[in-house]
């Protein structure tokens, strides 16, 4: 088991037939998880590049619905497949996963920066068209998986695992910031890496 697979085991079942292959190597995450964490990475990267990570203005109803609408394709896909109503493919899993997760960084940033007794005028999303950029990134990533060879494998593995770290970091940061009543960015990062390593070690040890 290589480094990528070790990190990927912290979040994904890594079933062989559910994974994409690029350049003769299986990606560290299954198709759905690859879509989920690539979308998280893409949205987080976009927010970082646009300097919106300190935004705290709540979204309008339309934008909230837009962010949450992506949850339903994944639910429909999972439920219909579980009930045996239809079969699904890795590309559908990837797409529904990406739709599921592209709004999560926006929600995490809002809930992290929002203060009920303070001012909240810094926008996180200025236009809904920004969301299309994250989805476009996922589409390009899919092409990279398909035609990128070993380079595609390295790039997509790194991006998706960075998304895994980001999700763990966001959850830990949310919890620690509430508990410690201050911004605990560094400790959150350490805790996230620690959890990933412990779960990875546990899973590789079990297997």
């Amino acid at each position, binding site marked *: 088991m290589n480094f990528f697979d070790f990190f990927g085991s912290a979040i994904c079942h890594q079933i062989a037939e559910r994974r994409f292959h690029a350049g003769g190597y299986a990606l560290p995450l299954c198709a*759905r998880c690859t879509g989920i964490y690539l979308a998280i990475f893409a949205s987080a990267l976009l927010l970082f590049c646009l300097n919106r990570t300190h935004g705290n203005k709540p979204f309008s109803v339309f934008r909230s619905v837009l962010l949450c609408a992506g949850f339903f394709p994944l639910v429909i896909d999972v439920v219909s*497949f579980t009930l045996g109503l239809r079969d699904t493919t890795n590309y559908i899993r990837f797409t529904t996963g990406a739709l599921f997760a592209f709004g999560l960084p926006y929600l995490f940033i809002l*809930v992290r920066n929002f203060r*009920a007794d303070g001012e909240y005028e810094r926008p996180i999303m200025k236009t809904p068209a920004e969301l299309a950029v994250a989805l476009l990134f996922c589409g390009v990533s899919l092409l990279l998986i398909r035609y990128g060879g070993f380079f595609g494998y390295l790039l997509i593995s790194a991006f998706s695992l960075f998304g895994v770290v980001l999700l763990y970091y966001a959850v830990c940061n949310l919890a620690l910031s509430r508990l410690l009543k201050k911004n605990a960015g560094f400790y959150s990062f350490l805790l996230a890496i620690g959890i990933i390593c412990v779960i990875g070690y546990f899973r590789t040890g079990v297997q």
Partner: protein
Amino acid sequence: MNYCKKCLRVLNEGEKFCPACGEAVTITIENPADKHTEPGTASQLDELNSIIEENKAKKETAEAAAPYAQPVSPGPYSKPIDLSTSTTHQSPGAYTPSQTYSTASIPADAEVPMSTKVILTILSVLIAPAGIIVGIINMNNKSKAYRSFGQVMLIVGITQMAVVLLCCCAGSIFSSSVSGIFNELRYYY
């Protein structure tokens, strides 16, 4: 002072009919400021005009006696009404585009009712996207209590989404280690 409406003869007090023409007496000017009497003849108008002039003179005398009195602000209907031009009436509480949808009716110091908290929390737990949307709507509220509660709902919704993601990991761990209800879970997710 009574007048005959037909021949304009001055009538004596108590006369109900004009002695000259026999017309029934209907015009009575009892109060000079009363404008609800029928518009009459030239003599009546002269008398009314004299009364108006008299009142105007009294008013000017009063203003001269108190030159620094506070001016009375013109009322909303002091301007002449021009029916030929269309005007739009806007009340003080009318909707303006800058107002948000949720802050119009709830005051800033409003508290969230307990029943609302229970219902929305259950909604947030059962249906995470609905909880997230309602939470964000509450975060736009003017009331601090509603904003705080909206943030809690958003945290609950996001936590639930994270749990969904981590269930994949949990399912894989359990399916690797123990058999049971988690054994086949990873094949569905």
